[in-house]
């Protein structure tokens, strides 16, 4: 569904993404892993069209992201700590989004489970970080898109909300392509099928998590990754 071909991105002299080639398919839950500053968010933003890249291309269902904004009809995005106009309330925000994306088959499961209707008339400026995350998550899933891009989705969520979100991701995973970044590898362990590992702007590996675990013999993703990284260091 998403083809990334030979992607290069730099801010001035600073090379952020180098020669990335990857193909993501429906049914995958791809965990995007890497240290801070390795280009995870830049990669996501490139897919979303938030940042421009210098070389290569990204095709979403065969269409280049440079061709126009229509491909985003099929993408739901949850930003890392999103912020919204302070004087708009939740109801108005959802109302506006629904008017922007005129899609009929809506998925309001998260909206209901997070009980956002109870606080629908509170201004977004007055909400706590966790509640904002709930709003962002509900918005990402609202239009039942085929592709979901979630940037640190569980950060700031309370355990109950976090569980609700993970369940939702697992539930949707078979029908969609879901791309997640997270620092909490345990969270990914529960939901991700594939791991995309970025280091210093390059794609180190892209593999099925099961096969990764088999190779290393560890049961936890965290340890598996740590081991892989250690191996790499030793090779150098």
């Amino acid at each position, binding site marked *: 569904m998403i083809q990334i071909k030979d992607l290069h991105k730099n801010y001035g002299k600073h090379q952020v993404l180098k020669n990335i080639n990857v193909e993501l398919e429906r049914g995958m839950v791809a965990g995007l892993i890497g240290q801070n500053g390795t280009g995870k968010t830049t990669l996501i933003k490139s897919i979303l069209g*938030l940042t421009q890249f210098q070389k290569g291309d990204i095709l979403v269902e065969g269409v280049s992201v440079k061709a126009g*904004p229509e*491909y985003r009809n099929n993408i739901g995005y949850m*930003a890392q700590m999103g912020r919204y106009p302070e004087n708009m309330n939740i109801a108005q925000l959802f109302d*506006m989004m629904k008017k922007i*994306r005129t899609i009929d088959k809506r998925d309001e499961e998260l909206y209901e489970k997070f009980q956002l209707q109870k606080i629908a008339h509170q201004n977004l400026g007055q909400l706590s970080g966790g509640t904002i995350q709930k709003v962002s998550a509900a918005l990402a899933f609202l239009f039942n898109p085929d592709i979901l891009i979630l940037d640190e989705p569980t950060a700031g969520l309370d355990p109950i909300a976090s569980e609700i979100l993970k369940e939702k991701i697992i539930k949707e995973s078979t029908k969609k392509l879901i791309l997640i970044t997270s620092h909490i590898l345990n969270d990914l362990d529960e939901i991700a099928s594939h791991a995309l590992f970025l280091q210093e702007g390059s794609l180190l590996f892209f593999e099925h998590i099961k096969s990764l675990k088999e190779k290393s013999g560890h049961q936890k993703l965290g340890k598996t990754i740590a081991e892989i990284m250690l191996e790499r260091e030793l090779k150098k």
Partner: protein
Amino acid sequence: MMKITKYLSLSILKSRFMVSYGFILFILCSGLFFLSNDMDKAIIGIHNVLLILVPLVVMIYSVSQIYQSNDFIRLLLTQPIKRKVIFYSQYISNTLVLLLVQTIPIALSLILFSDGTYLFPIILNLVFLTFIFSSISSLIAYKINEKVRGIGITIFLGIYFLAIYDGLILLIIQLMSDYPIEKYGILLSLFNPIDLCRILFIFKMDISALMGLTGAIMEKFIGSGLGSLIIYATLFLWAVIPLVFAAKLFNKKDY
């Protein structure tokens, strides 16, 4: 585009700042009518308030508004909407709300306490200044990524247009005083929208009789069809050119 503009406008309009700004403007303008014993003087006072307050408030508010809505713009950018649409929605909603919040109190005080002769020229200048300084703000805010630096530059530009530029005019006139430079007085003010609005209004108020030879030349210029065309076209360009550059910057910006 209409949808986004509508939601953004309503959101900005609800802010406490906007409401209190409008209220303060009304008190200020009405107060001038009560403080000065002459209607014309009060109207000149209102126009002076407008020339000083509007550029500064519009610029500082618009720039910080754009910085503040950075995340929201990012959210909109992830939706299937063209960048251009987002850019102009942001610009128009911001400008229209400012315009509304400024026009209503000023127009109201003029209608209530004066005979309304100068309502149109004052509102016209208000419209020009709001659009122009909103455009300039967009340019600054999309060009400079760091908020503090952006606001610093905004304040500097505000002071530049309000006072520094006029200081330069003073200097130029002083240095060139041996030459017949009366003709170029108006030319110098073309490069500052505040000066341009001020001079347009002075001639509407018939104060030009005080201005001697320079005034006579300027009145002839403003009175002629070509002259007024040049002035209004220049004001229009002051609004459009920064906006076009801002749109280009926005189109290529990484969020």
